[in-house]
């Protein structure tokens, strides 16, 4: 695969505005509220510490109209209390709730899109990583951007206000402040770059040390570590990685500390603690052009301006560009196109029809070699078809194609007279019930797990569970929650029981076709036998395609397809294949040998 350089289609600002626009659409009041909050949280305190103070000092120095001080104090009190009360009201009665709603709104858009994603997208690591990042960052995007709006507005306004005040006191003060900031602030860029490089390198080393750490922290490896004398080696590897982390820390922090020293000593010490007071002192003592009030105001104003500029240039830019990248991913994701396109027709979901696969070939994206080639087969209504073969022969891939989780690279699959690409993906898949090898239970009720729908027929679920051999007593029957994902009372099931629940889905769903991938892998012999019996009865009116390693289960199939290296190498009924004495017969005999010898 060619390594594509990360391209950004939109500018950072375009992305930020896009996202704020999105937030605005979901909750306009939230965005407007953030603007007001931005102004109210920064400006009042800074204004009081600069203008309020200066005014009072000036009045005192002049000695006239002293009672005006009281009016000033009342004004300060009103501004302070008013802004704070507004902030708390906004925070506790509005902001928290609005954030939940925005989270829902944004994620809903995202999830709806993700659900339609082509399955092959999951196999493309580059896409997949950015997909995960997109989803995982959506909550941070909201919080960060709202905070950014708030602080950006606040700092921008307070910067201009305070700078204006400084100008009226003495433009030279402002000049001194801006000069020092101008000289030393760009070092932040260097500092940020070093920190990023350090983090990047550390991630690499940490991944190693964390891995070995996990072996000792987690339960998974407990038995293996105890029975084999492998821990000295693992500890040694951990220590190597940990030493690399330490060396990396030292290497970068030497530089980071030096830059930090230069910058902080430059702005804070040389600028604000020396140059500015030097000039102010000169004006007060020698030139006598400024009073004590100006001195204090300029002194406090310097810190306020520094804080604003630091935020506006260093912080905001860093967060902007980081979030900009995330939002870019979000935007691109929502725009991404699917390969599996809906056909125009709606597939019927009635009686089974003939499934015909012609000259099918399939290559996974990014692979050179085809996983399937030259597949031709016809499945008649009501037939029970078995797919057998070694691991990696392409059996699961073939069923994935039938479900149109992927589209064929060549050839076609049709049901009845219709190519499956001519119907909508949903209506096509609706006529199948599929139990995958890597089936999953969901943290929902037992009934929902069987029906895979929020509405279900209680009796039908019970029958389906009975047919699949599920015998566990459930406290609340089909309404019992499964898994402990978020219900501590949830029912945990063993591998075998879980598989039975998954199989019950096939019994439940009202559809003409069933696909079963290794349905009995987790079951013991008795359960496996019972399952086979139940399946034969329940699926009488359906077409069934199943994959199995255990050839004992394939004996009763109407037809067996043996696959090897992506091709069908043998097909026929059990008897025919045994007579043929090929791969199937070889495999079957291997497994049957022990049973036969001892009969």
């Amino acid at each position: 695969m060619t390594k594509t350089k990360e391209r950004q289609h939109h500018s950072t600002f375009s992305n930020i505005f896009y996202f704020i626009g999105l937030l605005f659409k979901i909750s306009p009041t939230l965005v407007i509220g953030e603007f007001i909050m931005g102004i109210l949280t920064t400006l009042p305190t800074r204004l009081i510490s600069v203008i309020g103070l200066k005014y009072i000092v000036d009045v005192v120095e002049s000695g006239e109209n002293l009672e005006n001080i009281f009016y000033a104090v009342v004004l300060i009190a009103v501004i302070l209390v008013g802004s704070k009360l507004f902030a708390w009201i906004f925070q506790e009665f509005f902001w928290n709730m609005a954030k939940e709603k925005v989270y829902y709104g944004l994620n809903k858009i995202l999830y709806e899109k993700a659900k339609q994603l082509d399955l092959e997208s999951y196999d493309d690591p580059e896409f997949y990583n950015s997909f995960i990042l997109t989803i995982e960052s959506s909550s941070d995007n909201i919080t960060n951007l709202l905070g950014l709006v708030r602080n950006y507005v606040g700092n921008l306004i307070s910067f201009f206000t305070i700078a204006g005040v400084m100008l009226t006191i003495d433009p030279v003060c402002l000049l001194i402040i801006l000069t020092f900031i101008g000289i030393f602030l760009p070092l932040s860029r260097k500092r940020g770059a070093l920190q990023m490089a350090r983090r990047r390198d550390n991630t690499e080393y940490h991944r190693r040390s964390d891995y070995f750490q996990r072996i000792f922290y987690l339960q998974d490896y407990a038995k293996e570590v105890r029975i084999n004398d492998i821990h000295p080696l693992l500890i040694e590897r951990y220590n190597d990685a940990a030493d690399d982390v330490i060396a990396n820390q030292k290497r970068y922090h030497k530089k980071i500390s030096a830059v930090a020293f230069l910058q902080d000593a430059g702005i804070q010490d040389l600028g604000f603690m020396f140059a500015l007071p030097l000039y102010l002192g000169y004006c007060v003592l020698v030139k006598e052009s400024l009073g004590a009030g100006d001195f204090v105001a300029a002194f406090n104003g310097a810190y306020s301006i520094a804080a604003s500029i630091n935020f506006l240039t260093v912080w905001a830019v860093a967060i902007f560009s980081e979030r900009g990248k995330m939002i870019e991913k979000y935007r691109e994701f929502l725009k991404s196109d699917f390969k599996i396109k809906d056909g125009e027709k709606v597939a019927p979901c009635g009686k089974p029809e003939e499934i015909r696969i012609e000259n099918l070939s399939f290559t996974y994206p990014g692979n050179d070699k085809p996983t399937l080639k030259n597949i031709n087969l016809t499945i008649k209504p009501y037939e029970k078809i078995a797919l057998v073969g070694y691991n990696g022969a392409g059996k699961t891939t073939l069923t994935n194609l039938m479900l149109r989780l992927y589209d064929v690279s060549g050839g076609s699959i049709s049901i009845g007279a219709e190519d499956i690409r001519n119907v909508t993906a949903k209506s096509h898949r609706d006529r199948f019930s599929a139990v995958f090898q890597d089936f999953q239970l969901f943290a929902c009720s037992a009934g929902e797990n069987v029906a895979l729908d929020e509405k279900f027929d209680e009796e039908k679920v019970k029958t389906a569970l009975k047919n699949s051999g599920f015998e566990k007593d459930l406290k609340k029957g089909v309404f019992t929650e499964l898994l402990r994902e978020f219900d501590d009372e949830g029912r945990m099931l063993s591998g075998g029981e879980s598989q039975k629940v998954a199989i019950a889905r096939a019994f439940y769903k009202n559809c003409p076709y069933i696909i079963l991938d290794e349905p009995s892998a987790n079951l013991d012999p008795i359960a496996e036998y019972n399952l086979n019996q139940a399946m034969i009865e329940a699926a009488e009116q359906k077409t069934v395609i199943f994959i199995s390693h255990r050839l004992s289960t394939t004996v009763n199939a109407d037809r067996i397809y043996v696959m090897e290296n992506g091709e069908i190498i043998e097909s026929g009924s059990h008897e025919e294949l045994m007579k043929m004495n090929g791969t199937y017969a070889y495999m079957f005999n291997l497994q049957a040998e022990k049973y036969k010898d001892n009969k």
Partner: protein
Amino acid sequence: MRRPPRDPNLKVPVFKNIIYALKLVWQNDKRLLIGYMINGFSANIFMLYIQNILFLKVLLGILDKGSSFESYLRTLVVFLVLSVSLMGVSCFTSYIVSASTKNVLKKLNNRIFSKAITLDVECYENPEFYDKYQRATNVLAWSYYDFVCSCVSNIVSAIVSLALVIGTVTAINPVYLLFLAPVFLVFIIESFKSKQVYKRDLEMTTNNRIKAYTQRTVFLKDFSKDMRTSNIFSVLMQRFKAAIDSNVEILRKYGLKLFIFSTVSSLFSEFIPIIGTYAYAAYQFVYTNTLTVSGFSVVLSSINAVRESTMNIARNFDMLVGSALYFQNLRDFFEYEPKITSGDKMPEKFESLEFRNVTFRYPSAEKNTLENISFKIDKGETFALVGVNGAGKSTLIKLLLRFYDVTNGEILYNGINIKEYNLDAYRNSFGAVFQDYRNFAISVYENVVCHECSDEEKAIAEKALRQSGIWKKIASLPKGADTVLTREFDKNGIGLSGGENQKVSAARLFAKDFEFAVLDEPSSALDPIAEYKMYENLIEVTKNKTVLYISHRLSSAVLSDKIIVIGGGRVLEEGSHSELMAKDGKYKEMFTLQASSYNNEKEETEND
């Protein structure tokens, strides 16, 4: 680093645990604690007191007095030298701290590792212990050890700076202390508030878990197929929406309470101090004329310093309380005495193994998992354990390997109770392949021989890999068996499939000089032909050795010398394949079921 969540329901002594934490760090690297102390003082005392208050006070004092510009300049230079050198010290300490924090991490991890391998397997399977153990390891994973140092140094230095500020204000006019005093009430209000926040967050836990779960089901490949072929997505979205709605309700419910707490907190920490100071200063300016401009500015800056120091102490103290629990758990972990203790006998060459009236009940279980199990295995025998899912087969193996000790009865190795043997030596005399086998992200060779290996050992490993049927695949890799397994952190590593991994795991057994092999479903991930070959090789390698294995596929039991059928925790039947087939019991029933389809004879099987 993340803030330790504070759970008021889990109370542990704070002071004792923090002292323990500090000692732990001190023992491992003194520089970390010293470094944080210096940084704390530099931030709290220099920045907050010297720079913001003392500096302003001195300068305004000079201006007030109308001294010469020269003496003003001299003062500035003194402050410049002082502040630049302090800045230098603080930057240097940051550098020291950054390396020594990782050094402490490494040393503490080594301590945890060596303790972890002595832990009973039971601990891992006991949710309560495991929770605590996870919290103990979070001290490292989330850098709480680092956190505690920084919190303590912050608190100590903030207290000192608070004292300095109060001293300064008192010197100007003690009345102002009246307005500053309410700031300290923040401690109490904030603790009430954080209790409410905690309660609120607790109510939202389930909803937040649902939110996280929905997210996971959407992006994990595991769920992708079911999601596309069924209607489950709408079920999940509905739950997601309900969780959000319920969160909004909860937030609304707590809104008023939190608003009141926040407002009261602002009243004491901002409204009273700031407005009070301004008002009293105004009074002084207008009526008593006892306040200088410089005094006024210093008092105003002091309010800020007092607020910041107090908040700083409150915040850091809160975090210390939160982290105390984690250190308590770490300490408990270090002090945990394993129940499975080592004896001192070294195991001799294997002769026999006997389970005598063994009964076993998992801790806190209500029923016995195994009941009165007795059987004997002699040298060279092949033994199969057979039974339905959940019959107790894997438990029996855990007892044999002393992952658990029996509740009643005894297990004898060469006629001696296995508790009398040296634990490591005893376990090491077994070769085992587990159902939940694991491989490690080290080279294939190392995975097989379990340490860095010489050329001689490489030859042994190669043979073992051949026997397990994976050598051809491994040899075809550019770096052969020196390739690291998994792509966890090595781009040139190799990700193997389930079956292939199982083969590497089996090779570990083949390479080991064992007396007794324990095989727990060693072929579950293999296709029929690979399974057949695996068994052939197992028979080959274990020739003349003793083997105990568990398998669902009874075809493999046929070859064993003796079969034990377990059901409901008891031995149901025992004997060779032909003996058991003659008996007409459970074994026959199971075997006939499996065989029926292979033999292609329609047999009548009674199901009872």
